[in-house]
């Protein structure tokens, strides 16, 4: 399972970076989205995958039995997902306004601030 996820994550990073290197504004945003998904999956995988062992203390026990799924990475991912939702929404609005203001979605044309 880890191996499959490793390939999925690698593919997502590669696709994200490829999209970010394109000149179109929309593709840039898709690339950012893919990258943040890849990072979330990476946290999920790197923290270790444990199947069917929820971190719940069974009735009559005093402590957790050792192999259990770590809840913290999932909490981290939830936070990261919420943040990336907000950021993506803002980036989409910004891209639209930039398209309106500049008149094109070609990033190579957006260089009046670099001169």
């Amino acid at each position: 399972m880890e191996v499959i996820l490793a390939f999925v994550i690698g593919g997502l990073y590669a696709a994200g970076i490829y999209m970010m290197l394109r000149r179109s504004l929309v593709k840039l945003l898709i690339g950012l989205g893919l990258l943040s998904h890849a990072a979330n999956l990476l946290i999920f995988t790197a923290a270790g995958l444990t199947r069917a062992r929820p971190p719940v203390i069974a009735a009559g026990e005093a402590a957790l039995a050792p192999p259990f799924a770590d809840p913290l990475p999932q909490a981290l991912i939830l936070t990261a997902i919420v943040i990336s939702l907000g950021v993506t929404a803002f980036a989409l609005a910004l891209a639209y306004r930039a398209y309106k203001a500049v008149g094109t979605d070609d990033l190579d044309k957006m260089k009046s601030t670099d001169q």
Partner: protein
Amino acid sequence: MTLLLPLPLLIPMLTAIITLLAYRSRRVQRWVSVSGAAALLAAALWLLTEVWHAERGIQAMQIGNWPAPYGITLVADLFSAIMVTLAGIIGLAVALYSLASIDPAREAFGYHPLYHFLLMGVCGAFLTGDLFNLYVWFEVMLMASFVLLALGGERGQMEGAIKYVTLNLMSSVLFLTALGLLYGLAGTLNMADLARKFSGLAPAQPTGLVTTLAILFLVAFGIKAAVFPLFFWLPASYHTPPVAVSAVFAGLLTKVGVYALIRVFTLIFVHEPGFTHTLILIIAGLTMVTGVLGAVAQSEFRRVLSFHIVSQIGYMIMGLGLFTPLALASSVFYIAHHIIVKTNLFLVSGVVNRLGGTFELKKLGGLYQTQPGLAMLFLIPALSLAGLPPLSGFFAKLGLVQAGLAQGEYAIVTAALGVSLLTLFSMMKIWNEAFWKTPVVSDQSTVNSEHASQSVSGGQWVLLLAPIVLLAATTLAIGLGAGPAFALALRAGEQLMNPALYIEAVLRASGMP
């Protein structure tokens, strides 16, 4: 005592919420904004004195009383407290300046709440003791800065914002990636706990993965701190928003990246300084040189200043690369000096724009004749930036050079001295073009300038100049009182070089042995 640590977070949050609720009344928003900023400065000064006088030096508290490696920790050592105080000073100065320089349309669309959310994010990043929490504060700060940068929707702002947003989000993704791998490796993200786990790493043990992670963090924070070769977003975006926004960005945002670099590379990744810190030193040298060369080539007031930010970041991380108590103390001193001076220069550029109608140095001129007082107010931070005694920049550079010589790193010392000469050159270029030369006549700009100077009323003048005078006085005070100021920085540097104190303070606060 338990109230004190979260106070620099609660005050800006409350201020932002109140200004948000009072969105109908511009007058209420403005009053609340300034008094909130003043309260933040007061709380920050209180925190600084408390940390300075405290017996153990470092204050820590656990949010929600969850013990340390599990809950979120707030920590204030001397370095954090100094940074929060600086944020308070800049917060108040720019809040005042905004009253006279931000147009009513921007105020109506939430300038004041965003400004205080930005300050909250900055203070949060300085105070947190947990790496994931640091990521969250980074995002709070970034979200506010994105909107502040884009607010107004002019074409230049949009183009600058696209670059700024893209590269900062890229850096956040790298940071998140590094966090995921670090959690997989160490099983914790509490900084003190991480430091304790990694301090046991003997040189014989395989540390390759830890070093790789260190480099991932270096890249992620390096983008935010705008080091070579990751700084391109900064000069492309910092000159596009209104001056007040530029000034607060220039003063505080990149320094949060520098703060994170110093924190992580003094506390957690100290297992292989021969590689990581030498790399930082090389980056520092290249950052200084490329930044200043970029500045020399520019002829727009705020773009010159933006490139100087990049150059100055090099000095700050030079102290980190040298990695001795004196070097880190000089870095802390340099950051303090730079934040005040750079913000002040941006504020002056705004007044110059008000008077001359443009930021283009070629079209300005003759301001020394009409405004000798303003010219003096420009000279103080400008000469301080270049490092002339007895201003604050001189002592900051002196400390770094001494630390470099003590370590035998002659190449970086040469670079530092050469770059400060070029800094003086480009500050003199601004002086000659904007203040000294005879004004350009029969041009569009003179028409603009008459129009612009008429629109500045007496009350606005006070609001524009008061923060500049305040910051210039602070620069002078740091320079003239360099002894006590440097003693403060030295103690911060010693604390940074002794992570055991930090670890002990955090884990003791949670009752762990």
